[in-house]
């Protein structure tokens, strides 16, 4: 739990240094903040001035049409992509222009589940999940085995540890990727569509798992998902990305009552389906 304490400390220092006026800030302090983030690929504008504040210790879900740049948005939070304009802050550190060691220090607090799982295909499922434990935490082997087996069981993959990613179905890869993200028990986890490609029952299991882990470890979670209406019951905050901007962000109940036309249309279709 020392991770949580350091998080709390840094949140405080952040609030002192970057939000000097108590009037301008909310009851929460941003753990991740995007300010006017713009990103183009060639002459395709993807992000067109995203302003987004991810509250610490909460589960925030980003929804939005396919191809709008939700994955691109997540990659900005962990410094995999640099914005053309704008700033990305993680706990009072501007990561936009960080490189090398300084960026790695920030990244150590993150884990990320990629949309395509991004498992290392030269390693077995077990080795994939064990990878960050062995490489980063340098845990002794018995501890590694215990934690990996525990996570694999939680995502419903016990007994599959010896398989290679190429031998898994899409949904199984996703769950192995989820196990790899959760196993580090980091302060911030980015989930890119954790339940896409899973059957409804398995999707519910994964949502329950994420929620349970979130309650237990209190990490800050940012999730990209198309699972409407399920996300309304598990998220603390819901944000919608549309036309390269965040058009709405609110707790689920308020979000569902939103007056924004685009939001209403988007979630209405999701609920009908």
């Amino acid at each position, binding site marked *: 739990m020392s991770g949580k304490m350091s998080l709390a400390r840094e949140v405080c220092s952040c609030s002192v240094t970057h939000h000097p006026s108590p009037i301008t800030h909310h009851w929460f302090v941003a753990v991740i903040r995007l300010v006017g983030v713009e990103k183009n690929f060639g002459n395709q504008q993807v992000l067109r001035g995203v302003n987004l504040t991810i509250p610490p210790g909460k589960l925030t879900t980003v929804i939005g049409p396919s191809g709008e740049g939700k994955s691109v948005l997540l*990659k900005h939070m*962990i410094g*995999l992509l640099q914005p053309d304009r704008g700033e990305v802050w993680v706990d009072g550190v501007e990561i936009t222009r960080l490189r090398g060691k300084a960026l*790695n*220090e920030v*990244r*150590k607090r*993150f*884990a*990320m589940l*990629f949309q*395509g799982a*991004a*498992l*290392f*295909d030269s390693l077995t499922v077990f080795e994939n999940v064990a*990878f*960050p434990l062995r*490489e*980063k935490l340098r845990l002794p082997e018995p501890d590694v085995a215990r934690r990996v087996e525990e996570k694999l069981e939680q995502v419903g993959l016990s007994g599959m540890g010896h398989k290679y990613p190429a031998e898994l179905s899409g949904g199984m890869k996703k769950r192995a990727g989820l196990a790899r993200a959760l196993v580090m028990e980091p302060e911030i986890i980015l989930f890119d569509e954790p339940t896409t490609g899973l059957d409804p029952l398995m999707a519910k299991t994964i949502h329950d798992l994420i929620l349970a882990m979130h309650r237990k470890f209190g990490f800050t979670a940012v999730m990209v998902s198309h699972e409407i209406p399920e996300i309304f019951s598990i998220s603390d905050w819901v944000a919608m990305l549309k036309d390269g901007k965040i058009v709405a962000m609110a707790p689920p109940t308020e979000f569902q009552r939103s007056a924004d036309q685009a939001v209403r249309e988007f979630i209405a279709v999701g609920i009908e389906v």
Partner: protein
Amino acid sequence: MLMLTAGIERIGRTTLFLIGEMGRMLLFLLSTFAWLLRPPLRPFQILKQLHFIGFKSTFVVVLTAAFTGMVLGLQGYYTLRKYGSEAALGAAVALSIIRELGPVLASLMVTARAGSAMTAEIGIMRITEQIDALDTMAISPLQYLISPKIVAALIGVPLLVAIFDVVGIYGGYVVGVDLLGGNSGAYWNSLESAVEWKDVYGGIWKSISFGLIVSWICCYKGYYTRMSAEGLGAATTEAVVLASVLILIWDYFLTSVLL
């Protein structure tokens, strides 16, 4: 007039692109070496790559070497016989192989077999975001993925070249002596008196630098693969062509310095 400016503009843009590309390639190599000097050293990764680049290339290298030596024996024997100097066959075969053909052909075979596979492997890891995943875990892909391959090539290629040399010289012997009835003693004698340590060292230097070229170019092209299946195919082709051409150009340059 308009066409002229457009033409000049295109030349300018291409030149800038090439200079930029060369800069990126150099930076890629230098950062990899910088990462190489930092712990942790990954002996197991290096061994794995050595197995792939070195051991698994042994068969094609031996095959190439045997036929190269044999054809040299054949050509050499008939050419030398015209001047009545079949006795120098050993020297002719050994010098061509040790100085030139061994390093060049072995490296070209490694490029075709292991180099293309390296580009494809790294390129797929780029496309499927495995390299991004390493980055998010704060593990340097250059250190984890690239540097073991470069070290393995620096060790593996000279060893393959040594095997090539030995097999090639025996190939020449089999044809020139066993098949065509040349004198066995003369073959080894001429070889011994003609080949100097300088030739052997030269071959080793060449093979080390070729190992660097192959692994560097092939890793670079894979690392900066464009994000599509065509991009991956193009990267593999470009890597093999560029590495092969660079090997031949660098070979000429080194030979002119070493001679």
